[in-house]
């Protein structure tokens, strides 16, 4: 019983980070209807960003996240202008191919530079004992930061001028232009914020598990599952979806081999697509 409680708690905490990663994917989809296939490799870059700053320069991993976030934002803006902007009005296949190419480039370069050998950020804050449950503090911090960033994103989108512009462009790009909103810049900013969320999520995951340059792919797939759970284009849904997935991952290994986790996740994915394609919590777009 205690064992189950620990697993659920563990999974729940991890779920916040999953939710954060998925938010990067769903924000971009929600604003510009682009499925960002470079999401996974960008998560990997976030992992390596924290790793390099910590191992190379001795910067505290949580401080390193700030630099990683700035890097993610700028990288996303560059990717938008180089690869996405010219095909933004083309059929979906074009944007899929464009972001897939970016994924190939990042993965190719990353493998060449870092090889595919595993790394880890050797930084532990110890653990916290609650009754018989033991929780690593890294996880608690990662969950708390994810929650904070989600709240920050929510407030940003609601309360600031550029946040309002992002929602307006997502809702009706043509009308936003007519109101004086430079929509191309707003799309680039949205893409930047999406990749920023992905790199930060990657950076947080790096403080929890060992990883390789290819590790982001796993989290990209999780982000898709979460996006479908929570409804693509819905940040709050992404967080809830993340929590559900996290808890499932906590529980499943208590009664069957952990290797079955992805199988269950994808069965869920397909089932939801078949039964409730707008997501469990409904999405604003169909």
């Amino acid at each position, binding site marked *: 019983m205690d064992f189950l409680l620990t697993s659920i708690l563990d999974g729940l905490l991890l779920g916040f980070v999953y939710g954060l990663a998925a938010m990067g994917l769903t924000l971009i989809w929600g604003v510009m209807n682009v499925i960002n296939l470079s999401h996974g490799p960008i998560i990997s870059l976030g992992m390596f960003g924290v790793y390099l700053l910590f191992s190379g320069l001795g910067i505290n991993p949580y401080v390193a996240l700030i630099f990683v976030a700035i890097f993610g934002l700028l990288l996303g803006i560059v990717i938008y202008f180089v690869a996405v902007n010219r095909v933004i009005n083309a059929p979906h296949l074009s944007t899929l191919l464009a972001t897939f190419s970016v994924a190939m480039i990042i993965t190719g370069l990353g493998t060449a530079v870092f090889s595919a050998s595993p790394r880890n950020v050797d930084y532990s804050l110890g653990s916290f004992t609650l009754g018989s449950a033991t929780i690593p503090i890294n996880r608690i911090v990662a969950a708390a930061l994810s929650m904070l960033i989600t709240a920050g994103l929510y407030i940003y989108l609601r309360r600031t001028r550029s946040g309002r512009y992002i*929602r307006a462009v997502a*809702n009706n790009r*043509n009308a936003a*232009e*007519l*109101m*004086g*909103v430079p*929509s191309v810049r707003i799309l680039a900013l949205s893409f930047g914020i999406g990749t920023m969320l992905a790199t930060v999520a990657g950076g947080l995951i790096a403080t929890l598990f060992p990883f390789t340059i290819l590790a982001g792919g796993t989290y990209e797939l999780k982000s898709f599952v979460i996006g479908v759970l929570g409804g693509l284009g819905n940040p709050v849904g992404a967080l809830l979806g993340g929590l559900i997935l996290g808890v499932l991952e906590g529980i499943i290994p208590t009664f069957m081999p952990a290797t079955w986790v992805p199988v269950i996740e994808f069965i869920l994915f397909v089932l939801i697509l078949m039964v409730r394609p707008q997501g469990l919590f409904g999405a604003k777009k169909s």
Partner: protein
Amino acid sequence: MAILEIRDVTSGYGEVQILWGTSLSMEEGRLTSLVGANGAGKTTLLRTVMGSIKPWQGSVWFNGQDISHLPTHAKAEMGVVLVPEGRQLFTDMSVEENLEMGASPKRARAHVARNLERVYEMFPRLKERRAQKSGTMSGGEQQMLAVARGIMAEPIVLMIDELSLGLAPVLVLDLFQSLKKLKDAGLTMMLVEQNVQMALAISDYGYVLAQGRVEIDGPSRELAENEHVRSAYLGH
């Protein structure tokens, strides 16, 4: 002085040409109406002015400056504002957020409070519904919001495509009165109207567009008396 001038513009969609050398000019402080049958190209002309579609040839001038190739948002920023056909509201946003979005141009930001008061006075219904999601409002209410949002932009030239569409006749009269007040306050306006009689009654100058060309233009009073206009557009 002509504040907005369209010179020999041709444009269309893809390969299909809609405008065939259209010229039109709007005098400062005047209300100009643009009428014509369905499919004549009125909306296309306004889209070309705003840059939602690019002019193939010809040019658009605002305040003596060639703005033909500026992006749409830059034109709104300068004070050239369109209330588009089909309303194009931010349907996921509240009424008040839509109005705030209208006030996006820098020149409008300083006057948000005054303009908000003004449009709420013009449309008390919007004030009652300020927190409602705009997409859930009735068609007429949405039309009011579209016009109000355009006024929030602090326009120098305000173009309204299909003002009276979907509105009750009483309300249209009210709205025309309000627009007259704006005009008296110095706003230059262009109305695209199905209701030709009403449009000619309140405007100073009118253009009749047919198959992408200006067929007739003149002072509205004269147009209203014109034999051809009467038989083709006024039904007598």
